[in-house]
């Protein structure tokens, strides 16, 4: 019964999305003017800091990012601070795998952590947590945003796990937070769809660039993404540590 309901919900949502998109012109039909105006075209043409002219494969010297692949130039150049957060996520995942693989060989017990690490984790935890929140609430002003901020929050919980072998975070709380954040993201997108025409349109007034309360819905989106990423990764870490104890 639950699955049927979920399936129906998904189909209904898909229909609403399709209707909304086809109602807003210029997204299904290829509209050259719209693409020219959008920021993406500047990233593709590698002329964000100024007009560099047309990029021709095999001829152009010293393009703005120095890379031919447009995805690489975005990931490793225009938004490389965000990539730092993603690298951290990868690092955490690799750590979890090695923890699991390491616990396979018998005779390895959980070791007690030292006094110094245990006490200092109590002081460093709030510092790292507040830094993570600072990073994703200022995503529209400074580099960073949801991903690095979320991974900072997860790292502060990782510190607690490493500092105290008996520590267990409240998994249910994180699952709930993750679910709420995911739902809010979709709801925000649908409000944009109804108000403006396409998914996640920036329907709030945007204000002066550089002020804290500016950017329309972008800060809200970043807060949601940060909460979602943070609770998700913390959940993964918790699962991994639990698995290690079981194995």
């Amino acid at each position: 019964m639950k699955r049927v309901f979920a399936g129906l919900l998904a189909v209904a949502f898909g229909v609403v999305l399709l209707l909304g998109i086809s109602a807003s012109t210029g997204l299904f039909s290829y509209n050259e003017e719209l693409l020219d105006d959008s920021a993406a075209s500047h990233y593709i043409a590698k002329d964000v800091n100024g007009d560099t002219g047309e990029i021709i494969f095999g001829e152009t010297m010293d393009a703005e990012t120095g890379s031919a692949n447009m995805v690489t130039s975005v990931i490793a150049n225009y938004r490389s601070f965000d990539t730092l957060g993603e690298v951290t996520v990868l690092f955490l995942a690799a750590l979890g795998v090695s923890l699991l693989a390491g616990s396979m060989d018998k005779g390895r017990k959980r070791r007690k952590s030292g006094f110094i690490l245990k006490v200092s984790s109590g002081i460093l935890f709030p510092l790292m947590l507040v830094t993570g929140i600072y990073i994703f609430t200022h995503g529209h002003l400074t580099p960073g945003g949801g991903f690095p901020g979320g991974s900072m929050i997860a790292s502060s919980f990782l510190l607690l796990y490493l500092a105290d072998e008996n520590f267990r975070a409240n998994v249910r709380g994180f699952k709930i937070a993750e679910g709420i954040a995911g739902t809010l993201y979709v709801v925000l997108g649908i409000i944009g769809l109804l108000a403006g025409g396409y998914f996640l349109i920036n329907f709030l007034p945007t204000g002066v660039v550089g002020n804290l309360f500016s950017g329309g819905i972008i800060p809200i989106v970043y807060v949601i993404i940060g909460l979602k990423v943070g609770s998700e990764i913390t959940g993964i870490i918790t699962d991994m540590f639990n698995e290690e104890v079981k194995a």
Partner: protein
Amino acid sequence: MILQIVFFILLGLGVLFATIRLFAGPTPFDRVISLDMINIIITGLLAVIAALKGNALYLDIALVFAVLAFLETIVFARFMEGKK
């Protein structure tokens, strides 16, 4: 200008020595210590770059980097504990 070059040379020397230890280090712990040292030097470098460019955004990156460097050291230390 010369002063900047002097600073970068000194910093490069520190990173160079640490890198030699990173490759030479007999135990894994030596390698982690040299990595930790390189990370902290990079934190200082980011702060200096922020001052040179006059852009406070690099300070955020320095802070995040310091946090991640610390966690990296702790993770490796806890993970390698008891392994021979």
